[in-house]
């Protein structure tokens, strides 16, 4: 009760003073039966109440609910507790919920410890052993909580400047959205042109927008925006720093690919809008608060002999066919001609370089199989087929597919329209793919397919052209992946932190994902992701500062002898270094932490021979307290007499 008076009079948060004796509140959640069906929650509460340092223990049907959070906040405000332990689900779900509740009550959100008694207890154990394991985990949390000191988040000033890597539809969309939020933005592009993969397309599926028109409009806006600086033929050559203050270095790339005849700002068909080239000479260096990755994709290059590719001039990829189709002139006979060659019929083969199956497909020169679906090729193929049938009705079109995936708005209608236009669809099994054979007949090529739609019959398609619907692969950005330390998925595309909860974020704080560097997307989806990334980056930079969790290494200057063992063990370059300082007139080396770069992994704490470095909020002393409490029988000693639940070793508990 004396505790109550102490805080009520002072008006200070109970946890504000580190000298305060620990008054731990333990809050145990039923999780609506998820936990309480297997753990005797009341028994655990009674055990915890009698633990040293614990002043109150409560239960709630849902501790994360408003009333649950209120009960914690009231105890903090009244001064009954100054450290909080919540025993509920995995901390990934609600740790931040409860830390925020503590902060709202005026407490220090870092004087908090979480015990996971759902995933680690009630979902995997039953009966008395479940109750006992929950008791031990919560005891450990309480043991640690006693030693928790108040911490403050690391505050990093954020540069109001962003770097966008890649000048395709995603990069341009992201740059424009950042500039619209008042963020100065630098966009770098390796090629001489703005437009990326979109610049190579024609009318876009399924609504028929003009790809060149979109590229022109975006690039025009980019080049005229005073907040955006465009660096074409530029590459990132050095990268360091941390969220809010990344140091970047941009160097001119080779200039071989530039179209000499085009003026800057002009649209070059199939390439994009010619952008301003990075000035030759010395690299340019500046600080950027956030980075948007918009490095795009590469089209799958078929292997020689794959569906006749490389062996026959009449076998081309879909991107190439789309470009040729753009320039094809209509003729009175309604027949498509490529060059002077009439195309009486053509076959489009789907899933080339996509949905590859180990043991069925052979690995290409990259040594990888593309097991993913490229998502855009079904619609692109059908769109091309429809264009041919409508513009050149005398040309027949066959589509050979494994599955049709027309998933987006308007795509299914386009598929139906292609059927109505008498595009002939045939379906093959991956184990018996179509063969493209050169023949001496009326047609140069014959496609032979075992058609599943015709009950597995072998059919022959005489054709003048074979089009391979090649999929998307990640662009070759190994240098950027290494420089920025980006995670890559099994499909080799960049991997987001969480597919639903943090879909455009990366574990590297301040770096965001936009477009097909993350996964195959169509132009609309890429623009969508880019706007998301720009919104995230803008929200970060507009505050002017970034707050990071304070769980980083801290050096005890009294104990550090400058051995440098921690610097050698450190996993993140720049997070730890030795600095010369003067102590008692003598020059000595001492370890110094750059908190914004520290990963909080604890490798330094493990190797320091002097025990002079610790991770705040996770000190060795706190770990030891947890281990002691896991092994302790204190919680069981009090309950054994009351026979609330059977202890695993009652004999020992009685001692």
């Amino acid at each position, binding site marked *: 009760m004396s505790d109550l008076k102490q805080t009520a009079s002072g008006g200070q948060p109970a946890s504000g003073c580190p000298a305060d004796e620990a008054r731990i509140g333990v809050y145990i959640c039923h999780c609506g039966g998820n936990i309480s069906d297997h753990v005797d929650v009341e028994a655990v509460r009674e055990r915890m109440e009698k633990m040293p340092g614990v002043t109150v223990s409560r239960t709630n049907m849902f501790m994360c609910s408003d009333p649950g959070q209120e009960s914690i906040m009231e105890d903090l405000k009244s001064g009954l507790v100054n450290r909080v332990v919540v025993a509920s689900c995995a901390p990934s779900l609600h740790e931040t919920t409860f830390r925020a509740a503590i902060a709202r009550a005026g407490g220090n959100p870092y004087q908090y410890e979480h015990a996971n008694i759902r995933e680690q207890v009630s979902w995997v154990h039953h009966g008395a052993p479940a109750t006992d394991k929950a008791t031990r985990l919560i005891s450990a949390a309480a043991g640690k909580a006693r030693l928790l000191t108040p911490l403050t988040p690391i505050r990093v000033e954020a540069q109001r400047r962003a770097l966008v890597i890649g000048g395709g539809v995603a990069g341009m969309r992201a740059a424009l959205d950042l500039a619209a939020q008042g963020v100065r933005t630098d966009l770098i592009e390796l090629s001489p042109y703005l437009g990326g993969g979109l610049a190579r397309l024609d009318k876009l599926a399924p609504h028929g927008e003009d790809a060149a028109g979109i590229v022109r409009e975006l690039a025009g806006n980019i080049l005229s925006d005073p907040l955006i600086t465009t660096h074409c033929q530029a590459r990132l050559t050095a990268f360091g720093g941390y969220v809010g203050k990344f140091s970047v270095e941009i160097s001119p790339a080779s200039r071989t690919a530039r179209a000499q005849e085009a003026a800057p700002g002009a649209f070059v068909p199939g390439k994009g809008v010619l952008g301003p080239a990075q000035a030759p000479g010395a690299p340019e260096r500046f600080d950027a608060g956030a980075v948007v990755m918009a490095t795009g994709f590469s089209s799958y290059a078929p292997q020689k002999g794959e569906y006749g590719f490389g062996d026959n001039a009449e076998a081309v990829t879909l991107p190439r066919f789309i470009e040729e189709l753009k320039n094809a002139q209509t003729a009175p006979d309604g027949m498509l001609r490529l060059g002077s060659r009439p195309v009486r019929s053509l076959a489009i083969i789907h899933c080339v370089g996509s949905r590859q199956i180990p043991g069925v497909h052979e690995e290409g020169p990259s040594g990888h199989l593309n097991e993913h679906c490229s998502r855009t090729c079904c619609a692109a193929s059908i769109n091309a087929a429809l264009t041919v049938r409508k513009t050149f009705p005398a040309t*027949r079109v066959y589509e050979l597919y494994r599955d049709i995936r027309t998933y987006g708005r308007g795509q299914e209608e386009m598929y139906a329209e292609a*059927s109505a236009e*008498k595009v002939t669809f045939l379906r093959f099994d991956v184990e018996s793919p179509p063969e493209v054979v050169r023949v001496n007949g009326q047609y140069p090529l014959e496609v032979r397919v075992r058609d599943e739609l015709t009950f597995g019959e072998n*059919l*022959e398609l005489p054709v003048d052209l074979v089009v391979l619907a090649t999929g998307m692969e990640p662009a070759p950005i190994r240098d950027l992946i290494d420089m920025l330390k980006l995670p890559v998925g099994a499909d080799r595309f960049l991997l987001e932190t969480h597919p639903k909860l943090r879909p455009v974020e990366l574990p590297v704080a301040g770096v965001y994902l936009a477009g097909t560097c993350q996964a195959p997307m169509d132009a609309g989806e890429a623009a969508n992701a880019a706007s998301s990334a720009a919104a995230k980056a803008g929200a970060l930079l507009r505050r002017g500062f970034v707050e990071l969790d304070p769980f980083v290494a801290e050096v005890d200057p009294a104990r550090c002898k400058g051995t440098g063992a921690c610097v050698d063990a450190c996993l993140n370059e720049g997070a730890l270094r030795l600095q010369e300082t003067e102590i008692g007139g003598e020059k000595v080396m001492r370890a110094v932490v750059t908190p914004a770069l520290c990963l909080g992994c604890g490798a330094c704490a493990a190797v320091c021979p002097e025990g002079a470095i610790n991770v705040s909020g996770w000190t060795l002393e706190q770990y030891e307290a947890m281990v002691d409490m896991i092994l302790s029988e204190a919680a069981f000693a009090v309950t054994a007499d009351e026979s609330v639940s059977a202890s695993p070793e009652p004999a020992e508990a009685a001692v």
Partner: protein
Amino acid sequence: MSAVNPAFLDELEAYGENAGALCFNCGTCAAVCPLDGGHFPRKMIRYAQIGAVDRIREESRELWRCLHCGLCTQTCPRGANPGEVILTLKRLFAAEWRKS
């Protein structure tokens, strides 16, 4: 091996508005058809799509077993009107018979 002839669908249009181009071969029509066995009427529509007129002729007796109950047309998800395709094929063979 048989060669595909997509031009057959164009020829068939002389005998009815629905030649089966819209069918995407889901098989719903065959599943609801009260006639026993096989893949009727999808099989006929598929043969029409790839121009396998000989196959349709070989199995043309099946066309005359059709009750024209309309279940397939009612349930077709693509609006391909399978019942009408069967009628169209009947008209084709009736015309061929008259000519002969």
